[in-house]
């Protein structure tokens, strides 16, 4: 069942078109990535879905509800972690959780969240005294305190060190494991590849592709090598290997394109025919390559 359905969403500010017909749907229980460089309409889209912005056109359904008309009901069912949001310096961790829990009809026990998110030791600490990672964990806990069906996490690892990012990723997986659908906005390829079941790739206010990370990458890899003996006959049967898509030869340099575990098949074939090679390299396609192929521009 689709928990979020966005159809032909449009939004402009003055004469700047920010969203130019965005459509996608999010299925129950998945981690859905919204990926794209900064300024491509990711956050605007998510804020429209959260009912924080009014779209100019198109339709949005969140669990069957209109986030503008049924804002209150939608806000009962979703939890959000917004980009660039702070809490008052002097609020204590437990006070923030207790306060936000009071906003919802069926909140979770915030003491549990405190434990789960490793904040029990910081219960009485003031927000302003927390480290970046602790603040981020508190924001995620606040997004979950209302017992939401969908959690929106916007650029949640920006500004965290690599170790804290890894830890946060594990926590996001745990959120999904608890049955909450997660919408993850990110401009980090590695994050999306690690976490998301499916990804909508944004470029200039449009969705240019929706697929699994593996599907976007396409599973195609390349292998290059140079024949040492200068004899090309040994590579003759390579085209016939089931994993190989294409073989191109230029003098003694050979480039093989294939999918899956084609590298093992190719090297086994070469060994069987006693072909000696040097400069063997395998290029794995990445989401960056996929993005460049989809949009004709590099990511950052």
């Amino acid at each position: 069942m689709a928990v979020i359905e966005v159809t032909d969403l449009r939004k402009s500010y003055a004469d700047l078109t920010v969203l130019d017909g965005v459509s996608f749907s999010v299925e129950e229980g998945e981690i859905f990535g919204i990926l794209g460089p900064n300024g491509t309409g990711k956050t605007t889209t998510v804020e429209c879905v959260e009912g924080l912005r009014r779209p100019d056109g198109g339709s949005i359904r969140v669990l069957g509800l209109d986030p503008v008309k049924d804002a209150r009901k939608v806000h009962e069912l979703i939890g959000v972690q917004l980009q660039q949001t702070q809490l008052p310096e002097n609020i204590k961790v437990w006070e923030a959780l207790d306060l936000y829990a009071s906003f919802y009809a069926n909140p979770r026990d915030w003491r549990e969240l405190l434990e789960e998110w490793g904040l029990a030791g910081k219960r009485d600490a003031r927000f302003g005294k927390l480290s970046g990672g602790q603040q981020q964990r508190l924001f995620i806990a606040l997004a979950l305190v209302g017992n939401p069906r969908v959690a929106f996490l916007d650029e949640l690892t920006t500004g965290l060190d690599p170790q804290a990012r890894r830890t946060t990723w594990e926590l996001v997986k745990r959120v999904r494991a608890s049955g909450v659908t997660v919408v993850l906005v990110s401009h980090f390829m590695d994050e999306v590849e690690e976490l998301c079941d499916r990804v909508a790739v944004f470029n200039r206010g449009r969705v240019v592709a929706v697929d699994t990370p593996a599907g976007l990458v396409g599973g195609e890899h390349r292998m290059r090598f140079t024949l040492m003996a200068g004899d090309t006959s040994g590579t003759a049967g390579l085209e016939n290997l089931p994993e190989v898509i294409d073989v191109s030869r230029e003098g003694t340099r050979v480039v093989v394109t294939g999918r899956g575990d084609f590298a093992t098949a190719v090297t086994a074939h070469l060994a069987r025919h006693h072909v000696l090679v040097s400069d063997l390299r395998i290029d794995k396609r990445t989401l960056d390559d996929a993005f460049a192929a989809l949009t004709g521009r590099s990511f950052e």
Partner: protein
Amino acid sequence: MMKLAVVEAKLLTREPGALFSLLIPLFILVVFGSSIEPGDTVLLPMALAIAVGMVGLYLLPTTLATYRERGILRRLSATPVRPGNMLVVQVLLQLVLAVTACGLLLAVAGTVLGAHLPTGVPSAVLVFLLGTASMFAIGLLIAALAPNGRAANGIGVLLYFPMAYLAGLMQPKDQMPAMVARIGEYTPLGAFGQSMREVWAGAAPSPLLLGVLAGYALVVSIAAATFFRWE
């Protein structure tokens, strides 16, 4: 809503600015109070006007503009609670703070200093409410226009001193040029201070000045509501 009020009240007590709004007028009262004659009708109204002015012009706009700057109002609008609740809670709490500051001043002046306390309690309350309403309206307008908390604080300070000067809170009115003193009487803080002095002197407050205060409160709060942004 109740929990929001409790948490915000706790936060207010942790705010050094709140303590200053209580202590600075009290300090002025005590320092100058040692040299007043018994039955003085000038010093206490002045201290009260300073207290209300500080809460309305510094504390209220700085708090609200900081909340907007930090995205706290925006975060609230993503919950089932309307961010308008925060505005209501803040205005009420700051009102409580202004009343507390004035209560403290009255208590100290009435007991320790032996200053004159007004007999016309209803008109004193009326003047206090209208004066506070006009100060808070200006505070809300600052909060609406200031891009961030620091700017709100700066605008508050920039407005406070000329307003306090024109109101005759910085030196005795008879030492000001007559023209300036006359104009000053129709500024929000001036009308507030003057009405207070009238009540303290045992007279009924001038309807014209009360009308001026009500006018400021109404017009400026409409402007604040028009310009207010949640983010």
